[in-house]
């Protein structure tokens, strides 16, 4: 994949839930290695937008491309696309009935068809990377929220995805656990992972993002590099939002 070809491209994407228009004319292009932070009030369509990228939601207008593959209903091997797109959820969503290491091995074995031994090695490698190899044989419920989210990140990384999507990864965490998760994400960003993060962690946005996107009412209202976005927001709606989340 050359640099000229964007990794993810959304062209005039729209999405309705019944009468409610969740996404309106979304145009977004993400190149390899880019780190994007998406923010906006709740209900603004941030989550819906990134969920469309791995087709957890279907868009009903416009086009979405992952590399050169367009996401459509006729797509024969949607799972081939999905394994290139890692996703981390707000509520971790670990497999509760499997130990941590098995959580990391399952998709490698079933989707990548990795051997058991190799899957185990890869799993341990990424557990070390998120700094909890000693928890490998525990069940998710025995871990703290921050640890669970780090496991979820490691689980997505085991598939060696081209891009990682984060859907409010720290919103369900206690303040003292937010850091350990953000540290892992900053690490990933430093390694050049392409990332799209829906988050309200503005410190993270400032230090890591190449571009910050502000959404409201299902539309992208503003996108700019962080200095510009925080220093000189263009829209009144953006200013209001920033004043609300930054005043504390």
């Amino acid at each position, binding site marked *: 994949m050359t640099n000229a070809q964007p990794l993810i491209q959304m062209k005039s994407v729209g999405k309705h839930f019944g009468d409610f228009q969740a996404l309106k004319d979304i145009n977004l292009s993400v190149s390899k290695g880019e780190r994007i932070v998406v923010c906006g009030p709740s209900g603004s369509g941030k989550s819906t937008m990134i969920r469309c990228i791995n087709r957890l939601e279907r868009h009903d207008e416009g086009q979405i491309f992952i590399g050169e593959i367009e996401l459509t209903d006729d797509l024969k091997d949607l799972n081939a696309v999905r394994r290139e797109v890692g996703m981390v*959820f707000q509520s971790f969503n670990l497999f509760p009935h*499997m130990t941590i290491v098995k959580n990391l091995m399952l998709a490698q074995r*079933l989707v990548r068809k990795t051997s058991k031994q190799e899957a185990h090695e890869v799993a341990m490698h990424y557990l070390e990377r998120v700094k909890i190899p000693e928890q490998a044989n525990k069940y998710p419920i025995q871990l703290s929220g921050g640890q669970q989210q780090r496991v979820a990140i490691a689980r997505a990384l085991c598939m060696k995805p081209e891009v990682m999507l984060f859907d409010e990864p720290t919103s369900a965490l206690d303040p003292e656990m937010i850091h350990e998760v953000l540290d892992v994400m900053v690490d990933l960003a430093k390694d050049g992972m392409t990332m799209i993060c829906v988050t309200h962690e503005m410190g993270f946005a400032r230090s890591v993002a190449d571009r910050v996107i502000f959404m409201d009412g299902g539309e992208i209202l503003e996108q700019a590099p962080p200095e510009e976005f925080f220093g000189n927001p263009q829209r009144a709606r953006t200013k209001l939002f920033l004043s609300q989340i930054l005043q504390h």
Partner: protein
Amino acid sequence: MSFDLSLILDALPKMLMGIGLTFQLLILSGFLGLVLAILVMLMRISGTWWLSWPAQAYIYVLRGTPILVQIFIVYYGFPQLEFIRESFLWPVFRDPFGCAVVALTLNTAAYVSEILRGGVLGVDRGVLEAGEALGLSKSQRFIYLTTPIATRLALPAYGNDIISLLKSTALASTITLMEMTGIARTIVAQTYAPYEIFVSLAIVYMILTFLIQKLLARIERFLGRYTIRES
């Protein structure tokens, strides 16, 4: 009123001769019922109307009629039908044991399929989405995520149905089967001591229920090992 202990000591071994038949009814219809229940449940949740409607109709009919009536229909009714007499199934319906197993199987499957559906619906949507996002196919998600989690969720209610099935086997005595209750009724007819005999029969069922409960609790502990916080 006197309570004749020697009568009980006399009757107990005789009734226990029927325990084998009680167990055969329980295990055979429990197993076949579970297999059928899985099938009916899959049809019910298939999202395809021509699979889902028959499943719903089946559940409605079998839950909407008394099990005793169902046993009578299978035992007295089916042999009246010529195509059944001429089919390869005739040996089953000619035999009261076969009829009892068929009726108990059909009945328990209706209830168990709904219990299993409850388990499947109880699986956290987010967990399945995580599997989806990792590229697991629909059938892989069903086998590796939904099935184990739903099994754990459905187990307590399923245990309830097994215990209920144990006691439904007593109804087989109405179609001449000499399982424990059938034997007890014969003894009562001979001794005119319904109180002693039926009370001791009741105690036998209670002991069996206790054993089943213990077994289920063990299975539940094993399947639920991932729900306990401390390692």
